[in-house]
């Protein structure tokens, strides 16, 4: 049937490329952690990389701080993003805010990270302002926000980057839902707050949660932000994985993959969650 052949031809390139590069890379990564490297002709099944990775002294701590950063960034960015969207939707803030929100979306994370280091560092802009205001004397008096064990600047950088993202998604959801359901609720006697809580919020929630999940998974796997703003101990997982991968001991490579697979596993769980949440949201479900 020519129609089905045409359809297959439309899908095939993308499926082959994504399957080959993404799935292929993932599968190669997995089998390499058990001693199989097909393209180098190596086949000596072993679990050594797994024991090596799991014996990495900082691993547990790295997992914990990475989850902390991802959870904190996601929570704060989602709350602020939804709040900003509601304000923009109802109150408005002029062209400038609009432009900044959109502009911020296009900025590479590494630039935000570097800017944040120069803003929040102990001799950064904030510290200088604090000095100017007479609050501190020497740079060391300023609280350590950059490369600190709590990843404060790291989290702030993610929040600055992801608030616009959540806000844009939330605005799109608010526009899609429209004001009719809320107005109907008001006519039936709901206060504005009740109308939001019982009508508007349940309608936009799936999109917001999907966006939050994407943020969470993204923060989990991003290298450059904790590389600039995180402490050297404990390291965020992507930093730990990268440093193990590029260490002088070549035997660390498969173990590094094990570490990155741990992140990928969390990512897969997030993927399932996003799929669930996006069901019924226009975007992918666009078949007529």
């Amino acid at each position, binding site marked *: 049937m020519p129609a089905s052949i045409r*359809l297959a031809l*439309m*899908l095939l*390139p*993308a*499926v082959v*490329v*994504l399957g080959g590069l*993404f799935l292929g*890379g*993932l599968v*190669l*990564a*997995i089998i*390499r952690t058990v001693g199989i490297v097909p*393209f180098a002709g190596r086949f000596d099944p072993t679990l050594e990389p797994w024991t090596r990775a799991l014996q990495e002294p900082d691993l547990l701590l790295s997992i914990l701080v990475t989850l902390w950063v991802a959870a904190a960034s996601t929570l704060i960015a989602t709350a602020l993003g939804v709040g*900003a969207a509601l*304000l923009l939707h*109802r*109150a*408005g*803030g002029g062209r400038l805010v609009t432009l*900044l*929100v959109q*502009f911020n979306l*296009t*900025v590479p994370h*590494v*630039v935000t990270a*570097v*800017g944040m280091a120069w803003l929040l560092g102990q001799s*950064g*802009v904030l*510290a200088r*302002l604090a000095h100017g205001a007479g609050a501190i004397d020497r740079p060391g008096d300023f609280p350590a926000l950059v490369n600190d064990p709590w990843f404060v600047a790291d989290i702030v950088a993610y929040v*600055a980057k992801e*608030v616009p*993202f959540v*806000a*844009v998604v939330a*605005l*799109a959801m608010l*526009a899609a839902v429209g004001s009719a359901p809320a107005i109907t609720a008001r006519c039936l006697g709901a206060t504005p707050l009740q109308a939001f809580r019982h009508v508007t919020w349940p309608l936009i929630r799936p999109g917001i949660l*999907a966006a939050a999940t994407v943020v969470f998974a993204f923060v*989990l*796997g991003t290298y*450059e932000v904790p590389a600039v703003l995180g402490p050297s101990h404990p390291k965020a997982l992507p930093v730990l994985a990268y440093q193990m991968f*590029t260490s002088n001991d070549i035997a660390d*490579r498969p173990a590094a993959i094990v570490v990155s*697979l741990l992140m*990928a596993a969390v*990512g*897969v769980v997030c*993927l399932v969650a996003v799929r669930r949440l996006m069901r019924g949201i*226009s*975007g*992918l479900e*666009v*078949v*007529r």
Partner: protein
Amino acid sequence: MTAFGAALPRRAGALVRRAAARPQGFAARSALALLLVLLVAPFLPVVVWSVTRAWFYPAIVPQTLDLSAWTSVFSATSGVPAALGRSVLIALSATGLAMLFGVPAGRALALHRFPGRRLVEVLVLAPLVVPPLAVAMGLHAVFLKIGLAGTVPGVVLAHIIPTLPYVILVSASVFSAFDTGLEDQARSLGATPSQVLRHVTVPLLAPGLAVAALFAFLVSWSQYGLTLLVGSGRVPTMPLILMQFVTAGRQDVAGAIAVLTVLPGVLALVLSARILAAAAARERTTS
């Protein structure tokens, strides 16, 4: 990273703008002002550093202005012009390939039901949610073997992983807003399939697809971890070279590079706003 947002209505920009035009209360205004500060603050030191070398603690404004960062950024020895060219080349190539593979798939997802559709959807969403490090590490051995590791083509291939899903999602939303009845109408009026493509489909979809391409460009442009791993550190793009200068303690040059790194985004915003505004003006339908 912005892919998911773009899968939702492309008019988000217009929505933000329309919403922003309404009157406001004092509390709302203050909250938005705070948001604005958060959004702008990181760029202040970046811009300031790009025009000074002498900005020592506790000076709030730099002691002297100095544009030498910009001269060194534009001198061949700094490696920045080469990195700029490399970044543009990589992002253009990755975007081109992603469009080539992604637009037809977007159309298929938008307009057809087929068996295995859910699997394709999962495959498309996966690279957006599953961290790329493991994938890049898995590809690394193969790329080493076939001589792609540490090369521009290797990095381009790797960049297809985050850009392709993006192009597929955006073009799916473009196609789902496209009335294929117009193509039937054109055929019925006597246009051959290639005439339909040239006179109807392409002109109507061009604005949306152009915006998809612009933002795919930005996705590639912003990549860091993938470039670092697959490029084995030997393919310094703008984000990578920015880090090199930060690590080397040259805040002034790093500031200038950061400004340059942000520019394509600004350009893309202006361009996409123009493209969409022109398309909207052309197609605005009376209701």
